[in-house]
């Protein structure tokens, strides 16, 4: 019977969504058609009820607009003090979000969802404050009028004639947990208005004439009701989804809205949003930048950018396509993304132009067979009206001093084109003069045409037109009867004139397009190259510091903005980097903004919707849901960061940085695990080795000592002496053993700190020889230190240990009395210290194995030592940045050589007077 069980993935997504919702606070919107319908009143009533249920309810901010019955409802509710801000001489009362977050009530009332905060607040809009409250798990009651809904904004301005600037993204409305419609029939509202219950009397007159016309109110009411009905519908769909009721709508609707740089764009986006919301479809907004559009002035391009960001805010995915052919680009994109509905503006070309040059819409209709196309008509304005730029200030900030863009010296270049046009015409004329009479006039014209083509190709339209005009003039004056006169006897030459002109213009246009294409291609190629370089460098980076250095350099190169990446400490608090910065580093990032970004995994700062007052822009460096750090970038030019393609590039950068960071962290983790495994293995072999090697001397000590204790009186002094000496010897052996084990443990654990100082080699050798003088008493030891060996910058105690171990090994594995040599020499940039003997040498193939822990050439109890000696040597030499190797000498015997790097700066001595 359960034929239509929900898809498990979908179900999982639902569960996740519900879980996320459970953590978030719940948002209830009191929704009305217009001011005065009683939203605040209803909200306060509801709040009082909650209060009566003993819920912790406070009033964050409520506008009573002087209405007494509303104000009366405030009695008995705790009110959060407002933040007072001095703005241009006025004291403004603003909602205090920090106080609210600190107070942490269960439910907070924040009136007027669409309110715009005073500049300098954390968020520009109140709805963003509310989002943060919800994130923090606080329930919120708020109120909203239908005209403030972003997607309806446009329609309502058409109905009412009044444009509302304070808007709320539809997503906020859609994601609200509850929406309560506060409804009042228009007549009653008008009555209330007349009674002065809505506005103070002076404003009533004005209000009634403009906004509160009955027709307006009816339309608004309808919109509000419809919006609420849509929500109920959406709830119903959710319910059906929950309960595995079979979907009835067509699945996988995808809508593409195509915009251009004109007035229609914003309306297209809003229309797309409504269509998408109605169909519950994914939607995208595409802007095709043709070479012609790429040459638009910066303000127009910024306006397009603004529209794209509006679309993002409305929930669309945006994309900028770069192609000379608008319709082809759209179709290709639509096919690639499985689009089945396209929303475009009505063709801008009309009449004969459309018929002759075609229109994007016509091409779309004829090529996109499975795609429904929706056309949106423009209003009375001229089609190419410049967009109103609302947030123009955002993009018009002057760049920091010293970074103003230089005006390229193009004028000179253009001027040069005209000179060339004249020159080429003169050359053609000279040629024509020489050939005149020998060649047909038609062929002479060809020569001139060639010149025009050349000019068109190299210098563009203006010079090519000049060249054609001059050419035609020259032909007319010099080669066409009547000579030396501009009169044209034969009207045929008018055709020559026209063709030359057209050829010139057409070719120069073509060339301009080709060049623009080449520029775009070059730009893309450069971007690809940059990304490739970054990913290659990041892939080879070994440390977090490397990654940061690479990232900072490339970000600086690409966005010409100083930047810095901040990382958190173990407690999750961001810190300034400890390493000295690069020249490209940003100094003085605002840690509090960065911390907000880190905690919320959203960007903030200049040009964004959060803390736009900050000087820099802050981006989370995150992979999946884990925020690894924060990038702070001080933009030299906001456009360089917020242009869609630049933003994509930045996103890719950030993703690559995050992945590189993760890779390093994982590999560190893996290394750690590997080390732990290694340590575990080592501990096991150590235990078995120790238990054997410690027990042997212990057995001898216990035996000797107990013999001494038990038979004190019967023993000769000779026997007693022998036993005592045996105890001393064995104890010393144990001491060595234990010391070695402890050394190894310290070196392994990495806790052995290097106390590096400058030492003459002979002093180190001297210490070693005096330490071992007992063991070496019966051997000649030849010390040879080359006079050019500089002082060593080492931890002397450790290097001494190396030589002690090497010498001890030599005495252990070579016949008693055989000679040993210690040699120190310099080789290029290294200092080599070697210990050689005249014993049997190292068994073949074991040169490397010798340095492993617990390796012993011969397992004889008489020569115990756990086989740690050489492993310790290697560990010590390696922490000094050197190497150690053992090999056999051609004349017999083994030689162990320690190679240490020669440190660059040997100490300077002031000469003694």
């Amino acid at each position: 019977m359960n034929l239509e069980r929900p898809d498990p993935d979908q179900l999982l997504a639902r569960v996740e969504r519900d879980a996320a919702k459970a953590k978030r606070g719940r948002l209830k919107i009191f929704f009305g058609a217009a001011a005065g319908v009683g939203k605040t009143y209803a909200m306060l009533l509801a709040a009082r009820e909650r209060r009566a249920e003993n819920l912790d309810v406070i009033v964050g901010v409520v506008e009573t607009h002087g209405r007494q019955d509303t104000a009366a409802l405030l009695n008995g509710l705790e009110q959060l003090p407002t933040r007072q801000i001095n703005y241009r001489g006025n004291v403004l009362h603003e909602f205090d979000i920090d106080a609210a977050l600190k107070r942490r009530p269960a439910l907070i009332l924040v009136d007027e969802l669409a309110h715009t905060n005073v500049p300098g607040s954390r968020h520009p809009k109140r709805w963003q404050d509310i989002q943060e409250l919800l994130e923090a798990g606080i329930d919120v009651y708020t109120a909203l009028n239908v005209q403030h809904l972003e997607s309806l904004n446009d329609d309502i301005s058409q109905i009412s004639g009044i444009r509302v600037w304070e808007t709320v993204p539809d997503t906020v409305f859609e994601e609200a947990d509850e929406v309560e419609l506060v409804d009042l029939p228009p007549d009653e509202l008008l009555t209330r208005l007349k009674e002065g219950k809505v506005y103070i009397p002076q404003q009533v007159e004005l209000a009634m004439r403009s906004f509160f016309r009955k027709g307006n109110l009816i339309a608004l009411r309808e919109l509000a009701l419809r919006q609420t009905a849509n929500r109920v519908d959406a709830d119903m769909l959710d319910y059906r989804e929950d309960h595995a009721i079979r979907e009835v709508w067509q699945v996988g609707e995808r809508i593409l809205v195509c915009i251009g740089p004109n007035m229609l764009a914003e309306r297209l986006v809003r229309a797309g949003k409504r269509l998408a919301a109605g169909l519950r479809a994914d939607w995208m907004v595409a802007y095709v930048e043709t070479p012609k559009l790429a040459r638009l002035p910066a303000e127009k391009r910024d306006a397009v950018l603004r529209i794209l960001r509006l679309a993002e805010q409305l929930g669309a995915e945006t994309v900028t396509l770069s192609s000379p052919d608008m319709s082809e680009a759209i179709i290709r994109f639509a096919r690639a993304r499985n689009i089945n509905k396209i929303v475009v503006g009505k063709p801008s070309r009309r009449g004969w132009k459309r018929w002759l040059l075609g229109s994007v819409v016509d091409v779309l209709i004829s090529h996109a067979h499975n795609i429904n196309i929706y056309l949106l008509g423009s209003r009375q304005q001229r089609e190419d009206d410049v967009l109103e730029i609302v947030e123009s200030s955002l993009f018009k900030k002057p760049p920091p001093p010293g970074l103003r863009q230089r005006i390229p010296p193009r004028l000179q270049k253009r001027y040069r084109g005209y000179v060339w046009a004249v020159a080429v015409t003169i050359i053609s004329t000279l040629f024509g003069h020489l050939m005149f009479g020998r060649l047909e006039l038609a062929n002479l014209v060809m020569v001139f045409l060639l010149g025009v083509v050349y000019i068109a190709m190299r210098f563009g339209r203006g010079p090519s037109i000049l060249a054609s005009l001059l050419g035609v003039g020259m032909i007319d004056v010099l080669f066409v009867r009547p000579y030396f006169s501009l009169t044209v006897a034969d009207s045929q030459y008018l055709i020559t004139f026209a063709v030359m002109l057209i050829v010139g213009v057409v070719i120069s246009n073509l060339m301009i397009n080709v060049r623009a294409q080449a520029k775009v291609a070059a730009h893309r190629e450069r971007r690809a190259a940059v990304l490739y370089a970054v990913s290659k460098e990041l892939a080879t980076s070994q440390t977090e510091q490397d990654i940061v250095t690479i990232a900072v350099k490339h970000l600086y190169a690409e966005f010409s903005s100083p930047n810095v990446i901040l990382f958190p400490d173990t407690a999750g608090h961001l810190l300034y980097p400890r390493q000295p910065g690069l020249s490209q580093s940003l100094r003085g990032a605002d840690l509090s903004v960065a911390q907000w970004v880190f905690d919320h995994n959203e960007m903030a700062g200049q040009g964004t919707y959060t803390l736009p007052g900050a000087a820099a822009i802050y981006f989370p460096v995150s992979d999946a849901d884990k925020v690894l750090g924060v990038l702070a970038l001080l933009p030299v030019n906001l456009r360089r960061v917020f242009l869609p393609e630049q933003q994509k590039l930045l996103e890719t950068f950030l993703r690559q940085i995050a992945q590189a960071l993760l890779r390093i962290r994982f590999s560190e983790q893996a290394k750690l695990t590997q080390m732990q495994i290694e340590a575990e293995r080592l501990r096991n072999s150590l235990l078995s080795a120790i238990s054997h090697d410690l027990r042997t001397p212990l057995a001898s000590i216990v035996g000797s000592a107990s013999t001494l204790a038990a038979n004190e009186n019967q023993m000769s002094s000779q026997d007693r002496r022998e036993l005592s000496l045996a105890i001393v010897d064995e104890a010393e052996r144990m001491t060595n053993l234990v010391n070695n084990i402890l050394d190894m443990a310290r070196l392994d654990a990495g806790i052995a700190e290097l106390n590096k100082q400058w030492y003459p080699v002979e002093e180190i050798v001297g210490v070693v020889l005096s330490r071992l003088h007992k063991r070496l008493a019966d051997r000649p030891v030849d010390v040879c230190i080359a006079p050019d060996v500089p002082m060593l910058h080492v931890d002397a105690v450790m290097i001494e240990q190396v030589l002690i171990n090497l010498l001890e090994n030599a005495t252990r594995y070579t016949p008693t009395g055989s000679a040993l040599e210690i040699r120190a020499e310099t080789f290029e940039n290294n200092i080599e210290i070697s210990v050689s003997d005249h014993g049997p040498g190292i068994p073949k193939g074991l040169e490397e194995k010798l340095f492993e822990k617990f390796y012993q050439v011969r397992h004889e109890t008489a020569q115990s030592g756990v086989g740690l000696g050489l492993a310790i040597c290697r560990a010590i030499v390696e922490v000094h940045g050197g190497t150690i190797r053992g090999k056999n000498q051609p004349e017999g015997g083994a030689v162990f050589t320690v190679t240490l790097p020669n440190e660059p700066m040997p100490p300077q001595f002031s000469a003694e007077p």
Partner: protein
Amino acid sequence: MSKTDPVIIIVEDEMAIRQFLRTALRLQGYSVFEADTGQRGLIEIGTRKPDLLILDLGLPDMDGAEVIKAIRAWSTLPIIVLSARNQERQKVDALDLGADDYLTKPFGIDELIARIRVALRHANRKEQSISNDVLVTGGLTVDLSKRLVSVDGREIALTPIQYRLLAVLAKNAGKVMTHRQIMKEVWGPPYLDNVHYIRMYMSQLRHKLEIDPAKPQYLVTESGLGYRLKINDI
């Protein structure tokens, strides 16, 4: 135990070590008193008027350095410190604070007795004022009053710093002199961090005084601590 026997106090928390020290030192004719904590040790020192103190650096109740500081506030009593192998830092601190010598555990009793003798003799000489200003050890003679240095009867010319360095070690012959102490005596405080100066001059001295500078007979390095002018009975 006669009245004139030198008095030694051992401050050490390990019973076994105290026991063997006591036995060995009594056999050598010293009178020995013991304490197992720093506090008790200080009390013993106050009451027994010892000639020498053997102090373990790893005491349960207080840092060995504090004990030395407390003693040095009022006494020049010779102090020999005992340290474990991984207590290099404490060892240097103890010597810098005025301990006379050190031994690293485990050590042989011969070594300890030799150190005790040097320390006691040094203390005596200090008391007798520095009248006996000629140091002779092996073939090396350092005449501090005439500023003459000779090896096997051959006079050696030294630069002023070389001489000052040798003189410091000779005045404290047999005792470890830490880098810090040598620096202060030879150069004065401003150069305290340039230990390699000492090493450089020490190397020059060895080339002049020793037969084989890599196997010094007189100027012995105490690795990581400083230098000692070796005298015959060690």
